[in-house]
């Protein structure tokens, strides 16, 4: 066994970090459990770590991903382990860096993946691209942010957007309609608050980066996609008044007590409680991403012992410059291959199957709203009639928005990693009175420009009609 003291001294002298050690790894050693994922005979037992929570969801994953894939070929098996989301990210990162961990990597959003790519933790997928046909099957807009120096290093896992969920029963009872512009939005919020409801639901307590969703909402629907595109390409600084004003508007809603009931509650009430309140009719509107959709069934209706139902509408426009019906787009997670994997070919095979078996993909998307929405072209007629219409509408609305060029930019996809982290950490300070909106934008600008110069901002797309 190597003497650990010599190990560290060598590292010290080498001076180029962990990657420089180059120790020969004997045999298969990715797990002390003895699962062999060597690529000798084309067969493999791929290690795959996923953040699917709950027995029901895990069964679904098995039925719609593991089983069909293993049935489609005989040599490769998937060995899946489930973790909670926050843990998964840290575990994967530490493992990748130690040149171990899963073969198929459930990677992060485009912004955060860049850091991993720069450290050579994800395998270059370009050589597998032709066989996988990814460039033709996956929408270009979704592949672009995962392309570095024209090479693909990850594939989009889930198509993200944001919308305004609302308690349909409460709305019907009060004769309310989903707001489409700022006046309607504010009037509704005021009226809801007057009736003792929480006008705008939300919480940062369970997922620490939640506040960036609100920033995404306000920057896109107040400033509009054009200024964002200019800022993302370095032509407009983040200190521009339009961005500062958006943050001020967000803060004013918090100060009015419209969001979560109070700023303190936004930061401490867990998601489960907020969802329960939403289901019981205590929250009127809930701006969130499509990832909330699969959870709602357990909080509304018979399962939750109430008579309420929910629906969703596009987020309202918050200024006259922004037309209503805008949809923010982004990619919430990605799939990649561990650069240190012993079976990269087999891992790539799995990814090829995932995006090309269209029938299985659509089945997957139909049975579980939003979680499995991959950016492949889908015809309305492909969708089964058994699919929840709200979930079907989500898929088609995002597609229509992209083809019409009426889309915006999600901060977790199009910003660089450090800037993305600052988006939510900084706004937390703003909302808690520790930072002014001006300083927030100015500090963000510094970070962003630095990353842009270093080439650490994902490639972006123009705000014009996109191909699917």
């Amino acid at each position, binding site marked *: *066994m*190597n003497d*650990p003291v010599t*190990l*560290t001294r060598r590292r010290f002298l080498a001076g180029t970090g*962990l990657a420089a050690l180059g*120790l020969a790894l004997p045999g298969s*050693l990715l*797990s*002390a*459990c003895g699962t062999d994922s060597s690529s000798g005979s084309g067969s493999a037992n791929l290690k795959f*770590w996923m953040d699917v*929570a*709950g*027995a029901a969801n895990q069964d679904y994953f098995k039925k719609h991903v593991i089983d069909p894939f293993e049935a489609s070929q005989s040599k490769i098996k998937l060995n899946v*382990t*489930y*973790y*909670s989301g926050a*843990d998964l990210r*840290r*575990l994967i990162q*530490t*493992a990748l*860096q*130690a*040149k*171990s961990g899963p073969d198929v990597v459930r990677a992060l959003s485009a912004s955060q993946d860049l850091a991993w790519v720069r450290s050579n933790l994800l395998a270059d997928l370009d050589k597998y691209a032709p066989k996988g046909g990814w460039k033709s099957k996956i929408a270009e807009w979704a592949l672009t942010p995962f392309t570095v120096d024209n090479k693909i290093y990850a594939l989009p896992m889930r198509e993200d957007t944001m919308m305004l969920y609302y308690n349909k029963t409460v709305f019907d009872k009060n004769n309310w309609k989903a707001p489409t512009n700022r006046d309607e939005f504010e009037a509704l919020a005021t009226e809801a608050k007057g009736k003792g409801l929480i006008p705008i639901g939300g919480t940062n307590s*369970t997922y620490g980066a939640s506040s960036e969703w609100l920033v995404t909402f306000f920057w896109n629907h107040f400033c509009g996609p054009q200024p964002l595109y200019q800022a993302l390409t370095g032509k407009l600084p983040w200190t521009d008044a339009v961005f500062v004003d958006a943050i001020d508007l967000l803060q004013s809603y918090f100060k009015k007590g419209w969001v979560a009931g109070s700023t303190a509650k936004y930061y401490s009430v*867990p*998601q*489960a409680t907020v*969802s*329960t309140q939403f289901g019981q009719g205590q929250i009127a509107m809930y701006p969130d991403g499509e990832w909330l959709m699969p959870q709602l069934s*357990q909080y509304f209706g018979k399962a939750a*012992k109430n008579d309420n139902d929910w629906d969703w509408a596009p987020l309202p426009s918050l200024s006259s410059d922004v037309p209503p019906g805008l949809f923010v787009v982004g990619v919430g997670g990605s799939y990649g291959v561990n650069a240190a994997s012993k079976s990269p070919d087999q891992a790539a095979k799995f990814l090829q199957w995932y995006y090309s078996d269209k029938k299985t993909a659509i089945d997957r998307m139909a049975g579980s709203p939003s979680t499995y929405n991959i950016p492949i072209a889908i015809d309305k007629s492909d969708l089964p009639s058994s699919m929840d219409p709200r979930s079907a509408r989500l898929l088609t609305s995002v597609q229509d928005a992209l083809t019409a060029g009426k889309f915006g930019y999600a901060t977790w996809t199009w910003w660089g990693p450090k800037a993305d982290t600052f988006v939510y950490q900084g706004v937390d300070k703003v909302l808690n009175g520790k930072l002014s909106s001006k300083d927030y934008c100015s500090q963000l600008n510094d970070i962003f420009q630095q990353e842009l110069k270093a080439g650490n901002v994902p490639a972006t797309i123009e705000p014009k009609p996109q191909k699917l």
Partner: protein
Amino acid sequence: MTALTRQGLTSRRREPLPIGRYAILTLLALSVLWPLLTLVFNSLKTNAAIGASPLTPPTHPAFSNFADAWRQGNFSVTMRNSVIIGVGTVVGVCVISGLAAYALSQLKLPAGGAAITYLFMGSALPVQLFLVPLFYLWTRLHLTDSLFGLMVIFWATDSPFATLLLRSFLLKIPKDFREAARLDGASELQILRRVVLPLAWPGFLTVALISALWSWNEFFFAITFIHEPNLRPISTSFLAFQDQFSTNWGLTSAAALFMIAPILILFLALQRRFVNGLTSGGLK
């Protein structure tokens, strides 16, 4: 009565029961027990009942939570893992810290003081300082996803405190016994085994219990170094359970009780000796 008081025979003073003191002690005891009791209450309630009134005793006790939690949380496996880790940690820590404490208390070491300082320093370093390089090293040594690998980490993190505890315990052992044994020609190791150990075993018991406790409850290293679900200890399994069933407080409370129960029973059974070990050695 006054005569007795003046003689200061406190143990025979006939005074009325000190109600005030018992009152305060009872209040303190309630402040400790009640939060834990809500855990017990919640474990016996269904989710709807908890939503309706979360802080009161259950009206219709439901024991289904326990069976469900046991199954869903895979507790038979994770408890077994934690027991293995615990036993291994205890044995290792007792051996390592026993030897070290003996050396520091009985044998004249020129740099003994420096060693003690070093031990203090080691236990003061924040875990973030060595976490990432340690993980990398453990991967190279095939010690990740390994109960043994976690044990070794615990040996390193628990032994300093254990050594200091044992040392102050051993300092109380009269030198004459050892001198006599040495004159009879026994080696240091034999002295340790035949003379010191029988006298010092309460201290060892305390060290064993503390190491068992720390290894049972530890979660940060556990969650970083063990990923394979069948190797997970009970602490990380509870955390995953809590995430998964965050809406079901009843179930999560039952799971929490599974985690508390074994170690609590162990301590209650051995508490007299544990406290004696902790206190007669003392932390002087």
